[in-house]
């Protein structure tokens, strides 16, 4: 046990070192018109985090992200449960949802903008159209793959519908719903960022695209790093949470 943990610690350190080396190598190859080297970037990111003007952008992105995630989660789980329990509706809807999942949703962005205008709700809507479908699909699959014996057992024990849901169904589908949420989390964040990149005056996505357009490589690299750290960190936390539950 301790040996395995020690090994994985070493593996983690080696992975990080290799990535930093690759980053430094990329800088050596592409030069500072494209990317800033790791330590400069970390220093600049630290300066950004200490500055007053940076936090409103973080706040704008997080606000839109939290709203979009809340809507995707509630709506996605509700829809997924319903489609999973109604077998026929689920069979009708599943391939359609899978097809919707594969369309390039950026192309819909103009429609979203025309419908919602250039403000917070367009970003939120864009996050939702990215995040909703994977959450529905995972929930649907979770409910459908439930062994029928669970529900029979619940009936045999004369559980009320509420007890059936809270004591039997919810714990059984939880691991798969958490994987769905993990993917939903990532793509919702992606959706919000894309929304900010295309038409917004605030937020991290705006900072990145602004950096790209004004050739502010330092800003782009630092914000990109912060975005990746946030995404990877949050994803790791959700993974650890899912593992602990199992």
């Amino acid at each position: 046990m301790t040996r395995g943990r020690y090994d994985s610690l070493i593996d983690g350190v080696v992975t990080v070192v290799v990535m930093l080396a690759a980053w430094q190598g990329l800088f050596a190859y592409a030069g500072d018109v494209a990317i800033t080297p790791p330590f400069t970037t970390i220093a600049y990111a630290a300066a950004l985090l200490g500055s007053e003007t940076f936090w409103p952008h973080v706040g704008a992105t997080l606000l839109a992200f939290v709203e979009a995630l809340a809507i995707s989660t509630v709506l996605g789980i509700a829809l997924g449960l319903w489609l999973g329990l109604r077998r026929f509706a689920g069979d009708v809807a599943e391939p359609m949802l899978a097809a919707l999942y594969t369309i390039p949703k950026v192309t819909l962005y103009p429609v979203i903008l025309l419908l919602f205008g250039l403000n917070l709700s367009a970003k939120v809507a864009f996050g939702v159209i990215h995040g909703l479908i994977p959450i529905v699909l995972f929930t649907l699959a979770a409910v459908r793959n439930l062994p029928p014996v669970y529900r029979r057992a619940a009936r045999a024990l004369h559980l009320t519908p509420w007890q059936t849901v809270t004591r039997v169904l919810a714990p059984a589908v939880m691991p798969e719903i958490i994987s769905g949420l993990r993917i939903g989390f990532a793509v919702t964040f992606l959706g919000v960022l894309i929304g900010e990149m295309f038409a917004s005056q605030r937020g991290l996505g705006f900072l990145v695209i602004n950096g790209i357009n004004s050739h502010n490589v330092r800003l782009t690299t630092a914000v990109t790093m912060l975005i990746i750290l946030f995404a990877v960190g949050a994803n790791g936390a959700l993974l650890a949470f899912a593992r602990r539950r199992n």
Partner: protein
Amino acid sequence: MSRAAKILWTRAAVVVGAVLSLEIVCRAGLINPLTLIPPSEMAAAMLQMLASGEINGDIAHTFLTVAMAFIAAVLVGFVVGAALHELPRMRRAVDPLLASYYAIPIFVFYPLLVAVFGLNALPLIAIGFLAAVPAMLIGTLLGLDRVPRVLRKAAKVHRLNRIETVTRVVLPAALPDLFGGIKLALAYSFIGVIAGEFILSSGGLGYGIAYAYESFENRAMYGRMLFVLLVAIITNGILYAWEARLNRRRGRA
């Protein structure tokens, strides 16, 4: 009517109903025509652009980019996936990266890719490739993991050599997951390329939509949009049906 037929008909009814109600809502003037044009006009605009050859260049440009990104992603994803499968410790180290990969908005790397590859088609191909390659890699790992041990033993019993074992036993057994990976790789490379064109590039279908949006040409925008959506949905539908057939055949075998 069989259950499968009923499902198909219901699905068709849902689609037709949605399109029709959108048409009615637009025609009745409930939605500003500057916001949304009726679906029939979108289709007309699309057909007109296709017939006049106006968007042929864009289509060829986008499809070629997607095709290169997709092929590269499938090849590299398969080879790296197979290699990682043989190197368990390496795989354990890479695993958290793979699990978090899709949380990263890839196209923020576009300026970097331009600096590395130059201002040509390669950065966009790279975006499509980067979007698609982990899907193929994960599909390959999953497929190889799921090859039943008894099949590998059977290959040993029959004294198959390494190549025969791979081509006759391992690959056929891993096929469903490999196919799943290929399917996702195609979808993701398409999404990546279109998104890259839309936000950053200056050519292709994605750029055409963004350009039409910015110059308020609704018909041009919705015509292209419909074309992109139809291509994605039809391709996905074909692969879905193919996959279902593949799985059915395996179920019987």
